């Protein structure tokens, strides 16, 4: 038992390591690894592993990644995910505030995750006690107004800019670019591990800044200042960020980038101290970091709350195990809590060394080598098509530098295509404007390509850096260490320890949670056919295969086709008998809401094998349907777990048959052939 629990930590630790790798290497996203894991998992016999381990691995990787993917953004100016596209952190690094930016970012990520976890636990408890799924309610309400919400975001984005005309042009242009690029066949399919998003993002948000810095005469990175901002600052922003992450998880079509744009916009509108740019930059940073971690959590948990996947990681989890029960949810919480604490601890412990290393790097050679890296990785992953998209993105991304508008206007790339979809007239609009999407099966990605490309993409920029550095040498002094308390706040070590312990407790609870569905009282949900019925209780929904019986088929399938061919019975007759048996079940279960279900295991289709009783256990459905002549005993009771029920069912079938009850009267041939 203890070993089983300890084993759960293995995927969490490996997931954490994977998160570090995907976070640090720009261009490699958690979605990429998740897609690879799913592909490997479904190769027959290749990866015989408990799906729970993979779920824990992916969850752990997703949250750990959010602590590390800020690095390329801060120190290299590369937004490795769209949420960081507007991050002012790179500007802070260029002002010598890299240490501070890192501290604010990881505390924002951590606190954002912590608040989101508390919200999730609160919602689950409410769901248990009051039977109210708040998330589902919010989702269904907001779903109706999503078009207007997005329209309002775009409108606000434009009218709050200094130059409304250029802001409008930028949103429209980047929006059209989004529509064209996201439906372009010259790059791999949008569902591929590497697709059009990366080159577009790099072009719009990363390269313009790096390129401009090459032309600036005095654009060097000053010595980084190290101060004691080891406090939980910007709690409000982290809270705001976690709400943003939650909305991202719930609102269809609203990505983390859109949520970040919207929140930053509001934050900017209501900021009193607009003059203190350093303070505002940190607020931005805390908010976006919190959105990142909160989004990682909600995107996965949306699978449980609203039955929707919201990220590459959640799609992978859904594919690995579609049946997300409460025990799995708690295990995911536990895994993410532990992983976030570990990630926080790693970054927090090493940040001073990271800054010291960064202090000896020369900025212009670094910018040049980063540009080389971005071009190479784009070429390796998305081919020449990706380079072309990167180029157009770059041209558009340069416009804000020459018009003094916010770079956020380039978010039209994501907002406009989504707005178009929710307009409900997308097909007409794209046809009239000749903007119809085309996808290709082009896949630049292969393992060889990936390894060789990765090696080249990393080594060539390093060589370029070393060569260029010989010609452009920047003046550096030793590291300054300042002790200044920037923000008031409590020390965060307590909350990290608490989160770790909470994570471990949740993991243990999940292990002991009845898988975790076990026999007990359930509420009737739906009749699929006479022998397949679903129920639910607070632990989740179960699909029951009624044990030991068989009813005629009603759905098109190979089974019904084979049966029809074998006995020369028209399919329509078989379906008709299946419908009658289904109606019997519907009538039976319409009488009451609650039932006692005895579960003996699962069948090959992952359905629970159930004996269904009335709540007082006086009536047994498995027996009743056979008794009334609408089902037969399956393989003469060979698989019935209870010997007593087996005998009762056999007797009931015999009586129904000789008395021509139910289907034994109207569809005798079918029932008789089913027995063969």
């Amino acid at each position, binding site marked *: 038992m203890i070993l089983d629990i300890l084993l759960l930590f293995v995927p969490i630790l490996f997931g954490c390591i994977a998160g570090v790798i995907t976070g640090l290497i720009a261009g490699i996203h958690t979605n990429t690894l998740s897609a690879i894991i799913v592909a490997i998992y479904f190769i027959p016999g290749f990866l015989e592993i408990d799906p729970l381990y993979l779920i824990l691995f992916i969850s752990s990787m997703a949250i750990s990644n959010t602590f590390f993917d800020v690095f390329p953004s801060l120190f290299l100016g590369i937004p490795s995910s769209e949420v960081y596209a507007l991050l002012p952190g790179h500007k802070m690094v260029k002002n010598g505030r890299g240490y501070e930016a890192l501290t604010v970012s990881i505390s924002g990520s951590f606190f954002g995750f912590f608040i989101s976890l508390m919200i999730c636990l609160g919602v689950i408890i409410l769901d248990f006690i009051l039977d109210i799924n708040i998330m589902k309610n919010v989702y269904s309400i907001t779903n109706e107004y999503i078009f207007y919400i997005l329209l309002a975001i775009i409108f606000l984005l434009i009218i709050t800019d200094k130059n409304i005309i250029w802001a409008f042009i930028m949103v429209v242009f980047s929006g059209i670019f989004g529509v064209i690029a996201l439906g372009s*066949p010259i790059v791999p399919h949008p569902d591929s591990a590497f697709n059009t998003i990366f080159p577009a993002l790099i072009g719009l948000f990363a390269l313009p800044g790096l390129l401009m810095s090459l032309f600036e005469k005095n654009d060097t990175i000053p010595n980084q200042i190290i101060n004691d901002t080891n406090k939980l600052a910007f709690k409000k922003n982290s809270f705001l960020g976690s709400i943003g992450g939650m909305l991202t998880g719930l609102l269809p079509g609203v990505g983390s980038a859109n949520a970040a744009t919207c929140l930053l916009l509001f934050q900017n509108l209501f900021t009193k101290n607009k003059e203190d740019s350093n303070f505002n930059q940190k607020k931005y940073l805390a908010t976006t970091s919190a959105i990142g971690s909160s989004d990682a959590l909600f995107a996965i948990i949306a699978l449980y709350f609203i039955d929707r996947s919201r990220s590459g990681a959640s799609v992978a989890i859904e594919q690995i195990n579609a049946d997300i029960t409460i025990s799995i949810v708690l295990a995911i919480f536990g895994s993410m809590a532990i992983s976030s604490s570990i990630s926080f601890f790693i970054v927090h412990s090493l940040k001073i060394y990271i800054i010291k290393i960064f202090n000896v790097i020369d900025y212009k050679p670094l910018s040049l080598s980063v540009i080389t890296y971005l071009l190479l990785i784009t070429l390796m992953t998305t081919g020449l098509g990706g380079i*072309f998209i990167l180029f157009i993105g770059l041209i558009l991304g*340069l*416009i804000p530098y020459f018009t003094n508008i916010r770079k956020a206007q380039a978010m039209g790339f994501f907002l406009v295509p989504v707005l178009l*979809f929710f307009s409900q007239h*997308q097909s007409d609009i794209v046809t009239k404007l000749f903007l119809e999407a085309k996808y290709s099966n082009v896949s630049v990605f292969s393992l060889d390509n990936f390894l060789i490309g990765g090696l080249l993409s990393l080594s060539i920029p390093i060589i370029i850096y070393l060569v260029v550095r010989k010609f452009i040498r920047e003046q550096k002094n030793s590291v300054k260490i300042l002790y200044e308390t920037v923000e008031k706040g409590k020390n965060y070590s307590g909350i990290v320890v608490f989160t770790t312990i909470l994570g471990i407790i949740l993991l243990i609870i999940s292990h002991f949670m009845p898988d975790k569905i076990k026999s007990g009282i359930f509420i009737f949900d739906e009749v699929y056919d006479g022998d397949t019925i679903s129920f639910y209780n607070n632990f989740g929904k179960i699909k029951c295969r009624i044990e030991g019986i068989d009813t005629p088929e009603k759905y098109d399938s190979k089974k019904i*086709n084979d049966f029809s061919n074998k006995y020369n019975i028209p399919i*329509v007759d078989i379906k008709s008998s299946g419908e009658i048996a289904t109606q019997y079940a519907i009538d039976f279960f319409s009488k009451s809401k609650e039932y006692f279900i005895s579960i003996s295991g699962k069948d090959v289709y992952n359905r629970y094998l159930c004996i269904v009783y009335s709540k007082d256990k006086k009536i047994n459905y498995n027996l009743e349907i056979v008794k009334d002549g609408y089902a037969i005993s399956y393989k003469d009771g060979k698989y019935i777990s209870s010997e007593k029920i087996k005998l009762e069912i056999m007797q009931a079938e015999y009586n129904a048959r000789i008395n021509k009850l139910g289907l034994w009267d109207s569809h005798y041939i079918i029932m008789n052939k089913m027995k063969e």
Partner: protein
Amino acid sequence: MKLNVSKTIYKYILVIIAIFGMIALQSMNILYANDVKFPNLTNDILQSNTYRNKVFTYTGVVRNYYINKYGIITIYFNDLNMNNILTASIFPNLGVIDKNILVTGSKIQITGTVKEYINKKNKIIYQIMPLDKGSIKLIELANYCKNTIEVKDIAKNIGKNVNLKFVKVISNEEYVSKKGTKMQKVKLLIKDMVFDGVIWHDKYTDNVKEILKNNSNNICINAEVSQFRGDISLLINSVSNP
């Protein structure tokens, strides 16, 4: 290096390059042809679990279709060789598609990426997502959808059997005449006109029942045009029989 050119000129140059760049990109998109042959999708491939996110070609007969409010079209196929339900999902960003491919009973071919998802009833649904509009091809229009007449010509064909397409059933109720004859009284929406119709009991087969139960938007009918109390009444012989 130093930026000497004024910002004003630069921003216009950038806009012009961006416009040309996007035109070039979209031209490439339009000219791109998916003319590669892809393997056929079979039940064995689906069962082997090696299909995910790969491109296949599937040919099947349309059983029914559904369009959600955002314009995503889901086509259901009538394929008894498949163990699970197979659907095609056509997203609105592909543009307006030929309506004939939605006619129940039509044979169509789709080339696209294959995925799977679990529906609300917890059933595994295989999903083929076309690469583009051109990868959805009509192989054979359902028979009773051939030689159809226009809605304006219905009145000219009283006493004749006609074929009508793009019919929507808006109401359907059982009716027993004074003589005890059972029939289904239906109201049909054809283009923008509503007609009364009758399906005699012997023609009200399970197949017809299923089509009407599914509230299909786009069925084809063969009917005799008659008059009842001065109004046109369509005596339905057959309703899309794939």
